[in-house]
C-alpha cells in the first residue's frame, strides 16, 4: 500500500543497481537507516528540500522498492524494518501533497503542513547527528593514540588494602555465578510488534468501509473510525482514505489542536459517492510491507 503515483508520467524506473552513475548509491548491506536513503535521494537531485523534490523522491523510493521485489531479489522486506519506517515517513509526505494547493486556510491544513515541516526538521536533525557522529568518530580515533596510565598497584600499597572478608560458601558462589551467567533479556522500552506480518491493505477498501460508516452516522472521530483496525497499516490506509475523501469534498475535518482528536463529518449529504473514485494510484497489487520496528516510530508518523 505504500505505492502510489508511480505511473503519473515519470516512467524512468530506477533500478536498484548500486554504484551506477545516476542510479541509487545506497547499498543495502551498508544501509544505515531509512533517512540515509531519503537523504541520498535528495542529495542526488541536488535539490533543496522542497515539496516538489520530496514528491519526486517519494516516487523514486517506491520505485526502488518495487524494482527490488520485481527482480525477485534477495532483499527481504521482512528483515528491513527500516523500510516500514521510511514508508510511513513518505506517507506523511504524500499526505501533505494531497492537500488542495493554494493558501492555507484551515487548521487542519496547518496541522498537516506542520506534520510535513516536522518531517523536514527530522531529516535535518538526522543529517546533523550524522555529521556530528563523523566528527565524534575522528575525535575518538585521534584520542586513541593516547594511552592512560593504568598499572597495577605497587606491592607496598596492595599490602595495605584491608583484609577481605569472605563469607560465601561454594554453593552460594555457584548460585551467584548461575545468576550472573544467565542470558539477560533487554529491558523493555515499548511493546514490540515484530511478530506481526502486515498484509497488503487497500486504501480503496478502507475508504469503502469508512465511507459507509460516515454516511450512516454522520460524525465520527478518527479514533472511532479506526477502533476496529487490527494493524497500523489499516490505520494508515484509513487516514489516506480520509485525505482522498477530503479531496473529493465528501467529508469535512475538524481538529482542535495539532495531534488532537480528529473529527470527521460526512458533508456530501445524500450525494452518491463510492470508493471507486479513489485515485488509481492506490489501485494496484502491492508488495506486502512487513517488518519490525519500534511501535513509537510508526505511531509518530501516523498520528
Amino acid at each position, binding site marked *: 500500500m505504500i505505492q502510489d503515483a508511480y505511473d503519473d508520467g515519470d516512467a524512468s524506473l530506477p533500478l536498484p543497481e548500486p554504484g551506477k552513475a545516476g542510479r541509487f548509491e545506497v547499498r543495502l548491506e551498508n544501509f544505515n537507516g531509512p533517512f540515509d536513503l531519503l537523504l541520498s535521494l535528495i542529495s542526488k537531485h541536488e535539490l533543496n528540500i522542497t515539496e516538489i523534490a520530496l514528491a519526486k523522491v517519494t516516487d523514486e523510493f517506491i520505485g526502488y522498492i518495487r524494482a527490488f521485489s520485481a527482480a525477485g531479489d534477495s532483499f527481504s522486506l521482512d528483515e528491513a524494518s527500516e523500510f516500514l519506517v521510511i514508508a510511513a515517513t513518505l506517507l506523511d509526505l504524500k499526505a501533505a501533497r494531497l492537500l488542495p494547493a493554494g493558501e492555507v486556510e484551515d487548521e487542519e491544513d496547518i496541522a498537516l503542513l506542520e506534520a510535513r515541516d516536522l518531517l523536514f526538521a527530522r531529516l535535518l536533525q538526522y543529517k546533523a547527528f550524522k555529521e556530528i*557522529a563523523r566528527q565524534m568518530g575522528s575525535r575518538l580515533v585521534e584520542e586513541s593514540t593516547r*594511552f592512560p596510565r593504568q598499572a597495577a598497584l605497587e606491592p607496598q600499597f596492595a599490602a595495605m588494602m584491608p583484609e577481605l572478608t569472605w563469607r560465601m560458601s561454594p554453593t552460594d558462589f555457584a548460585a551467584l555465578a548461575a545468576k550472573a551467567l544467565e542470558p539477560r533479556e533487554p529491558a523493555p522500552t*515499548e511493546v514490540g510488534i515484530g511478530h506481526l506480518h502486515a498484509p497488503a491493505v487497500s486504501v480503496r477498501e478502507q475508504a469503502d468501509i469508512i465511507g459507509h460508516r460516515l454516511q450512516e452516522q454522520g460524525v465520527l472521530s478518527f479514533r472511532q473510525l479506526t477502533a476496529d483496525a487490527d494493524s497500523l497499516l489499516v490505520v494508515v490506509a484509513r487516514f489516506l482514505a480520509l485525505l482522498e475523501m477530503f479531496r473529493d469534498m465528501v467529508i469535512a475535518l475538524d481538529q482542535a489542536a495539532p495531534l488532537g482528536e480528529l473529527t470527521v463529518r460526512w458533508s456530501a449529504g445524500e450525494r452518491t459517492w463510492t470508493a471507486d473514485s479513489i485515485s488509481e494510484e492506490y489501485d494496484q497489487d502491492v508488495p506486502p510491507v512487513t517488518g519490525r520496528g519500534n511501535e513509537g516510530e510508526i505511531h509518530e508518523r501516523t498520528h
Partner: protein
Amino acid sequence: MSEHTEDHAGGAPAVSAEPPVPDLASLPGGVPAALEAVLLVVEEPVTEMQLAAALEVPVERVAEALADLKAEYDGYTGQGPDTGPARRRGIELRNVAGGWRFYTRSEFAAVVGRFVLDGQSARLSQAALETLAVIAYRQPVARSRVSAIRGVNVDSVVRTLVQRGLVTDVATDPETGAVLYGTTPLFLERLGIGTVADLPKLSPHLPGLENLQDFDDTTY
C-alpha cells in the same frame, strides 16, 4: 611557583585512622612531586578536590600546581626559581572528564601500542557512533526516542555501547517506565573532553532549526 606554603589548614577534612601526611613543604619536590606520585597510581581521572584531600592542601594550591605541571610536561619553562627550562615529556598530564590523569603523548602511539596488551577497544561502527551521538546530545534519553531520531531500531547498538562502558542507564522515565540513557565519564575521557557541555554545538549543523529542542520536546 613556591613549594613553601604553610597553609595546610584549608584542606579537606582529615581522614581518621590513616597515616599522617608529612609536611609536604619539607619534602624534596613538595606539592608538585606529591601530585606526580598520586597521579602515577590513579586508575581514572581524579578531581582536584580528591587530590587536595589526599595531600591536605587547599584545592587552589592543587589547581595551580597541576596547571604548572601540565605546562612543564608540555615543554614550557616553569616560572618558579627551582624549575628550570623544561623539555617536552613523553607523558602528558591532561584534565579530562572532570579530573586529571597521566597519558602517553600521542606522538608515541606507535611505540606505546606495542606494550599495551589490552589496547583501546575496537573502533565503533557507524551505527554505534550515530547512536552514541544522539544519546550524548539528548541525554537522558529513552531508546525509543533515539530510534525515532535515527529512524532505525537501536536496541542492540545501545547494548553494545553499554557493554563498552560509553553509555549507561541514568534514570527511568517516570511516565513510561522506559530506561533513560546517558553517557559515562569513560565517554568523556575517550573523547578527551571535560564535560558534556564541551561537546561541539549541534546548531551549526541544523540551519534554521535553532529551536530544535522545542520541536523535539513536543514530538515525543
